[in-house]
Each structure stands twice: as C-alpha cells, then as structure tokens.
C-alpha cells in the first residue's frame, strides 16, 4: 500500500497525465463524469459488437480532452474479450516513409507471433485453400493472401524470410524461395496486406477488430505528398474491410479549427467518416464532478468526502484554471502535483497554504 493510505486513497486518482499502455490494466481505469460522451462510445461499441457494423469515427477536440484516455479505457475494457482484437497506434512522425511506418506500427502492436497463432487457429477450422480464398476475396490479391498465410508456417527459415518481407522487402532469389512474385511496395499494396491481416481477426461471425490511431493532428507536420499517402492508405484500408471493424481517429484541435480537419485528412478519407465525436473542455460543474468521482473511485473506505481536499478547495482550484484549459488532462496534472506535494510535505490535507506553495513553485496553468 502506498503513502496515500493516510489520505484514504489506494493510488493517485489523477495519475493518468499521459496515458501509457504499458502500465494499464483494467482495474486502474475509472471513467469519471463525461457521461454523454461515454454514452456515445457505448452505442458505437454496441453497434460493432451486436451487429458487426463497419464504422469510422473521428474523435476531435482540445488537447488533454481525454481522447487518448478513451482509447486506453476501451482497450482495457475489451482486453479480456477473446472476440475483440484492439490495436492502438500513434500516427508515425517520419514523413518520407510514413506508409511503411504505419504498416510497421500495426505489425508491431499485433505481433508476428499473434498473427502466426491466429493463422494456425484458422487452419484448424478450414482447409488452407479455403482460407486463401477467403483472404483473396477480401483483399483482391492472391499474391498477398499467399504471403499472409506463409506467416502461419512452421519453419524458422520461412519465419525469418517472411519477417524480412514484411519489414524490409526481399531480393528476387529470396522472393523465389517463398514462391512470391513481388514485395509490398506501394501504398495500395500495404493497405491490402494490412487488410488481409485484419481479416484474420474477423473471420468468425463473432470476431471484432478495433483500430485506434492517435495523434492524427501530426498530419500537419507532413507535406502534401506524405499526408496524401496516409489518406490513401487509410481510405484503401477502410474500403477493403467490409465488416466487423471500427476505426477511431483521435485528432487534437481547437474548436474554431474544425474546418481544418477535412484539409488535413483529405477529402476521400473525410467522406468515409460517419461519426464525429467532440471532446469539449469542462465547465466548472463538470470539472467538480470529474474530480469528485475520481477521488471516490480510489478511496479505500468509500465515503462522500473529497479528502485530502474539501469542496471549497476543489472549487477554488477549478476557478483558478482558465476555462479554455479546464480539461481532464489539465485537472489531472494540477491535482496529481498537489497530491505529490502534500506527500512530500507530509501534510495532513491539501490546504490553501499548500495550494499557494504549489502556485509559487510552478508556472501554474501555463
């Protein structure tokens, strides 16, 4: 048990300043306040899970508004569901090889061994020819369907070659060894290959796949040629996948910049987005509820108090945060720091004096 026991807390309720997949586990995640937003996501997942509807959703809004947290939350929610494969990546930053890096990020997240196991599992359900037909039918390329099925082989030498094929490309003699005619070169070919991999995870009627692509705002750092590659890749991927898949794009953007979205995503990709979900800043009342619910969800002995804070103190801090910065991210940052300061100072509670000390130490709310 941590030092926080003196504050009747299991852990720091505000610790998710920058959500990180490496430390997440289901019991850590608390969705506080933002009930309407949660309702929207619940509906999207209901449509996906119950009807297998293909959906493309764009989550947009201010920095620190909770988009990454949302991805992490639902990733955790579905972690133990064997029928849902969730993939989370951030938009790669390297422009010149952006399509290759997107492919690589997706492979890395799923992992070679998981793809191999999935193919081997599917081979127990049907003949390899049938699986080849299934993939070919979706991605419209027997060549890449054949390449994907090679991942499910039982030879170390083939494993090495196919990994090279996926990440670096092979020379002619290596391609010949695998009986393949060509590498994965163009944006369209990459989309086909990834769509084939995804389709392995949506073969059964009850199978579902969720792809989160975070930090899509980084498209602004790409020149027109490279950002077109991203749009083409995602457009082709969306078109090739015909069911059981939901793709979320997270895009940080100020409210008055909404019109920039279409220009950055490109017209073709924008047209394929069915649902835009806005992550707003809090109003003061929502911020208070968010803070209260987080504290209460982390209490050792459940009660209605906001200890080590109190109602007056919470309202004071919320009042001090400029309205445009009143986001879950900023609230987490401020309250997490305050809690750490209280522990450092061995303080009995978070008093106005401690808060003033915090303000004097940091460039608050900057």
């Amino acid at each position, binding site marked *: 048990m941590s030092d926080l026991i003196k504050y009747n807390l299991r852990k720091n309720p505000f610790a998710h300043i920058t959500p990180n997949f490496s430390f997440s586990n289901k019991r850590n995640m608390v969705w506080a306040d933002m009930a309407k937003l949660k309702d929207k996501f619940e509906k999207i997942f209901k449509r996906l899970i119950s009807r297998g509807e293909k959906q493309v959703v764009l989550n947009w809004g201010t*920095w620190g508004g909770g988009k990454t947290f949302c991805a992490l939350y639902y990733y955790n929610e579905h972690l133990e569901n064997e029928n849902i494969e969730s993939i989370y990546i951030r938009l790669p930053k390297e422009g010149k090889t952006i399509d290759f890096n997107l492919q690589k990020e997706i492979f890395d997240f799923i992992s070679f061994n998981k793809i191999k196991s999935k193919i081997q599992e599917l081979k127990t359900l049907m003949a390899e020819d049938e699986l080849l037909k299934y993939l070919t039918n979706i991605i419209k390329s027997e060549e890449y369907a054949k390449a994907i099925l090679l991942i499910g082989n039982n030879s170390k030498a083939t494993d090495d070659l196919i990994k090279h094929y996926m990440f670096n490309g092979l020379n002619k003699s290596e391609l010949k060894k695998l009986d393949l005619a060509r590498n994965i070169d163009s944006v369209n070919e990459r989309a086909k290959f990834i769509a084939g991999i995804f389709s392995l995870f949506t073969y059964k009627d009850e199978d579902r796949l969720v792809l989160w692509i975070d930090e899509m705002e980084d498209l*602004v750092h790409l020149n*027109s*040629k490279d950002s077109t590659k991203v749009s083409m890749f995602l457009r082709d991927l969306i078109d090739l996948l015909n069911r059981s898949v939901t793709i979320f794009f997270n895009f940080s953007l100020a409210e008055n910049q909404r019109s920039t979205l279409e220009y950055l995503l490109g017209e073709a990709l924008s047209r394929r987005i069915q649902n835009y979900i806005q992550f707003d800043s809090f109003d003061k009342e929502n911020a208070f509820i968010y803070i209260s619910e987080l504290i209460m969800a982390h209490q050792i002995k459940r009660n209605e108090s906001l200890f080590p804070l109190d109602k007056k103190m919470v309202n004071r801090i919320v009042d001090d945060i400029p309205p445009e910065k009143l986001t879950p991210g900023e609230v987490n940052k401020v309250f997490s720091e305050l809690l750490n300061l209280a522990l450092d100072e061995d303080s009995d509670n978070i008093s106005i004096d401690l808060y003033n000390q915090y303000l004097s130490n940091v460039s608050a709310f900057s």
Partner: protein
Amino acid sequence: MSKYHRYNCVVDASSYVNLTLFNDYAGKTLLEFFTEQANIHFCRCVNQEINRHRTEFMPKPLTQEKSVYNLQYKTFKEYELKLFDEYDEGKKNRGEKWNLAVTLDMFLSKGYKNLVYVIDDFNALRGVLKTSLYSFPLYQIWSSFDVIVYLLIDHKNFTRDLAINALKDINANLANDDPKTKREKTERRITNLNNYIKKIERVQKLIVK
C-alpha cells in the same frame, strides 16, 4: 503582364527556399508561378545565403543572380546605420536588414510603389525588424503563405488544389519558430494552416477557378 505593372517583391532567403521546395505544382515550383506574375529581387547577401541552402528545384545560380539588386540612393552601411542605429560588422540578420534597404531604395531611387517585402523568418519579424520594417507604410509585408493566396488570385493556372497542397508543404517545412513543446509546434502549425485555409475559402467565394 508588363513588368512595370507587376509587384516588385524583395524576397528573403527563408521564403526563397520555401518557394522552391517542390516542382510538382502542375510541374512547376511556386517560385516559377511567382516569377510569372512578379519581379523578384534581393540583396547580394541573400543571394549568397540562398546558395548556401540550395534545393534541387531552385533556378540556376546565373538566373538567380539576375534578381540581385544594386542600391542607388544610399549604401548598405548608410541604410543599416539609419534604420537600425548600428552597423553590424558581423552578419547577424544581414539579409533581412539589407533586403529592407533594397525595398526602400526601390522607392527612394526609382519611385516604385508596388513593393512587397517577403519573409518567412518570424523570429526576425518579431526581433531585429520589429521597429524599422513597420515604420514605412510604403510596401506590403508577405510570407510565402501570402504568396500562395496571391497566386490563387492573380495567376490563372494556379488552382485551389495547388494552393492547398502548397500551404501544407510550406507549413510542414516552416522553421520551428522556437516552440517550447511538440504540442505548441503542432498547435502553431494548425493555427497557421487554418488561418490561410480561411483566406483561400474567402478568395474562392469571389474568384471561382
């Protein structure tokens, strides 16, 4: 267009580089479109700076050399002393300072009135140029983004799609402008893109291509 009716644009090295990043705007660079509509000038030290940052699609050095303007009204030293209260023997911001001298000299010696000072170095605008550049209401001050909007208005073959691609390209290549964090850099670029997209949409309402 007769060269006497064109804008006379005094271009900084930062803008010259941004206008020659790519040549795939209908097979041309932005600079090629720009030179079809405007006269391009710069001081000799900007020419040297451009040569130090040559890109694949810049005009050949001899062609570029033709844009170098020779002062007639005063010397660079005299201009620098009067405009900046000092003559910096070092080379800090010399290109920006001397290009201002070129712009003023065109008015003072030749009476040109259709003048434009083009610069993408926003640090220099807020720093060394912040007083002197804004003291003479004789010329317009543009960035490469303004050049794009201008081309959309004035060049019959420069379309909206070319303008949007050009905005994205220059925005992605923009000097960092000292952002403290990655988020700040991203926000700044989105804001910049958003501002100029709004201008393009406004222009499009009036001039449909």
